[in-house]
């Protein structure tokens, strides 16, 4: 890339806000609602998923409050069922699945590839509208009286024994699913067809690789969820019996269809987070990611293996012993590419010039918590252990270690890391470090006791429990309170920084990605000229040379 082709800003102390960028390019609400700019759509998504995150978080708070005492005294058992169902549906379909891809992925993938936009900008906007329709329907199901099937819609419970708003919630998930399909489709086509000259597959940032793997899962898995959901709705509305044992249907068929999507879905959630961690670890240890191609391929391997493990959700549901054995072995295989990633991040840190900015703190939290979450997943994949631990709080703790301790920490790492790029302003460093540490402590206090509870046999999804479990439950609720504070803080100071944060400049972290070589916030068209990628990813020497010889032009 020639130095003159880049609008670059000098270092942060003298940085000024560029006069023209994607935020002030057009004004008014309609310019946002009808935009085809991937960066603006990312911001729309960021606002919406934050809203739904706090809705889902409120339900988590209510669940923990109910579990403070052994009796079901805050709410009745039925209401409690609605709480955890709502928590699950909102957090999984409306927060975790779109979290990193629809916000950071949307914003960054075209820029990282040197493109002006995603391949299909209008489909990108359509996907946001579908997401909003799905979100609205979910809220409608909630306001009308709630759903109490659990987020898994288990048949025949969901089709025959409940009289809540299952069809509304099912429609919501069906619609939101298409939003996810369109995002994945857009990413795959963009990554295949829109790369700048010189941007070969193995020069792409690992963030892009992990999004590519996640997109494959979105495109191949989500339609199967869609048809499973349609069948549940038809079964409820017409009573055709496809999942009804009294009419010859098989409830287990629903489990197969549902988990064929919903197991890969956890990789849809975690893979983009792993992409964030690769970027952050490399930048703050100032080293190329150790074993770049191993990390890249491990993303694809996780996506591939992820499709062949779904039956481990059904070990106690009467599947054959032989198939359970095979699926148990396949489940263990997923640990291999996951471990490759963790070891490579550790080797990236080795002898690096490590600094401890907020994104790095979150990244460290991710590595530790994800490792615990991942390894307890191996416990659950082992047949004998699973019989004992399944449907207990051990599962709850395992899942939250991966999804909150892993994914949410990665999301916050990414939000802090690219906040200067998205808004042009820095977040307050000491406050954000405080929130990272608070979340880490709060998280462990919440979920570590749940591992023990599960091991002792406390079943999940009940509003009441034997009195001997109370101490650990009180600890967990106390942790949830701390965790809640840790998640509220960023909302406040990031909002504050929009107006009062220090001007960031183009490359506050001295990172190597193409997104850091353009102004912050970027221009609507991202690049003035199509960049030419003439170096490897994470090439810090290239960056040093470039900065030394560059004639900076302030845009």
């Amino acid at each position, binding site marked *: 890339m020639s130095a003159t082709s880049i609008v670059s800003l000098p270092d942060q102390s003298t940085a000024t806000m560029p006069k023209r960028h994607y935020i002030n390019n057009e004004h008014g609400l309609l310019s946002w609602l*009808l935009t085809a700019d991937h960066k603006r759509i990312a911001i729309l998504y960021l606002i919406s998923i934050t809203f739904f995150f706090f809705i889902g978080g409120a339900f988590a708070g209510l669940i923990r409050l109910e579990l403070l005492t052994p009796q079901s005294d805050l709410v009745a058992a039925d209401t409690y069922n609605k709480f955890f169902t709502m928590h699950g549906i909102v957090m999984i379909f409306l927060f975790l699945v779109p979290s990193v891809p629809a916000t950071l992925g949307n914003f960054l993938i075209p820029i990282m590839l040197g493109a002006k936009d995603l391949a299909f900008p209008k489909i990108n906007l359509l996907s946001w509208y579908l997401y909003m329709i799905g979100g609205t329907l979910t809220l409608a199901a909630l306001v009308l009286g709630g759903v109490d099937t659990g987020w898994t819609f288990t048949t025949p419970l969901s089709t025959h024994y409940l009289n809540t708003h299952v069809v509304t919630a099912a429609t919501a998930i069906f619609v939101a699913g298409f939003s996810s399909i369109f995002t994945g489709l857009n990413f795959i086509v963009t990554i295949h*067809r829109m790369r700048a000259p010189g941007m070969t597959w193995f020069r792409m940032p690992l963030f892009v690789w992990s999004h590519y793997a996640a997109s494959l899962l979105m495109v191949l898995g989500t*339609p*199967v969820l*869609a048809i*499973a959901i349609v069948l549940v709705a038809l079964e409820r509305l017409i009573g055709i019996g496809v999942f009804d044992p009294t009419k*010859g249907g098989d409830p287990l068929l629903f489990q197969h269809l549902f988990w064929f999507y919903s197991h890969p879905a956890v990789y849809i959630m975690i893979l983009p987070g792993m992409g964030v961690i690769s970027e952050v670890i490399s930048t703050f240890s100032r080293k190329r990611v150790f074993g770049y191609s191993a990390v890249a391929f491990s993303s694809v391997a996780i996506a591939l293996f992820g499709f062949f493990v779904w039956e481990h959700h059904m070990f106690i549901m009467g599947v054959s012993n032989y198939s359970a054995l095979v699926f148990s072995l396949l489940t263990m295989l997923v640990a291999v590419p996951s471990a490759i990633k963790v070891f490579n991040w550790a080797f990236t840190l080795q002898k690096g010039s490590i600094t401890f900015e907020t994104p790095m703190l979150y990244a460290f939290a991710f590595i530790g918590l994800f490792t615990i979450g991942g390894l307890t997943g191996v416990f659950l994949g082992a047949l004998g252990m699973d019989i004992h631990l399944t449907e207990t709080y051990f599962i709850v703790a395992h899942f939250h270690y991966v999804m909150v301790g892993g994914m949410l920490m990665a999301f916050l790492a990414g939000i802090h890391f690219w906040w200067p790029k998205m808004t042009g302003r820095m977040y307050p460093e000491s406050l954000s470090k405080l929130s990272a540490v608070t979340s880490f402590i709060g998280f462990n206090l919440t979920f570590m006791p749940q591992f023990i509870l599960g091991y002792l046999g406390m079943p999940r999804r009940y509003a009441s429990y034997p009195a001997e479990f109370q101490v650990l439950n009180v600890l967990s609720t106390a942790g949830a309170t701390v965790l809640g504070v840790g998640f509220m803080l960023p909302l406040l100071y990031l909002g504050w920084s929009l107006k009062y944060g220090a001007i960031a400049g183009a490359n506050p972290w001295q990172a190597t990605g193409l997104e850091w070589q353009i102004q912050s916030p970027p221009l609507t*068209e991202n690049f003035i000229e199509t960049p030419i990628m003439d170096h490897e990813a994470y090439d810090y020497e290239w960056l040093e040379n470039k900065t030394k010889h560059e004639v900076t032009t302030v845009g």
Partner: protein
Amino acid sequence: MDSALTTPHTHEAHAHEHEHISLPQHRHHFETEEQQREAGSFGMWLFLLTEIMFFGGMFFAYLLYRNWYYPAFAAASNQLNVPMGATNTVILISSGFFMALGVWASEVRKKKTLVIMLLLTTIFGCAFLGVKYFEYKEKYELHHIPGNNFSIAMFVNPQNYPQYPDTYAEKPLAPDMAQKTQIFFFLYFAMTGMHALHMIIGIGLLVWLIIRAQRGDFTNGYVAPIENFGLYWHFVDIVWLFLFPLLYLINRHPLH
């Protein structure tokens, strides 16, 4: 999907004009028209992949239940109208043939031929749906639509239906097995219904394409929408080519 590929871009500032722009349909964020065309076609293939997975769920259910309730599936399948199904297969393949000619006409820039071919595609598509209507109507009259009005009478007492020779020749099913014909008919309606829904959406798109083809939008070198719609239409054809034997031709024995 097509509208996003084809509608010219107007409301966004063109910060940098390219030298090679010759078509009004060229979208600013693509470097070249070739890149745009490739991206569009690649996107369509991926979309079809999601469609395969979507239908795949139902094919999986079919596989499972056909293995479990084979006698019910065979008896219920024999009740489907093979001549109508076969006619529809020919109609749909013809429709696909005209669609292929349409893509060719667009490529060689023959506006009149393109419009005629698209019209023929539409007419054959509608004919398919017409035949389907009569098939569904027959099922309705026989109470073979799953739900509260579903009746297994025809499979328990086939001898009472001399007007349906295929069924008449069948051995009666035990009532609990006959009950499973409902699952067959549910899958029949779900799969052919989903297929018909795709046809209806396709016909809607065809009308829009015909109007634009008449304006000459697709005979100036801009083939992408016709090409991509063609892929979709052929996909819908292929789904039917699987549905027809799997649903209509289970254990047919015409020489009995």
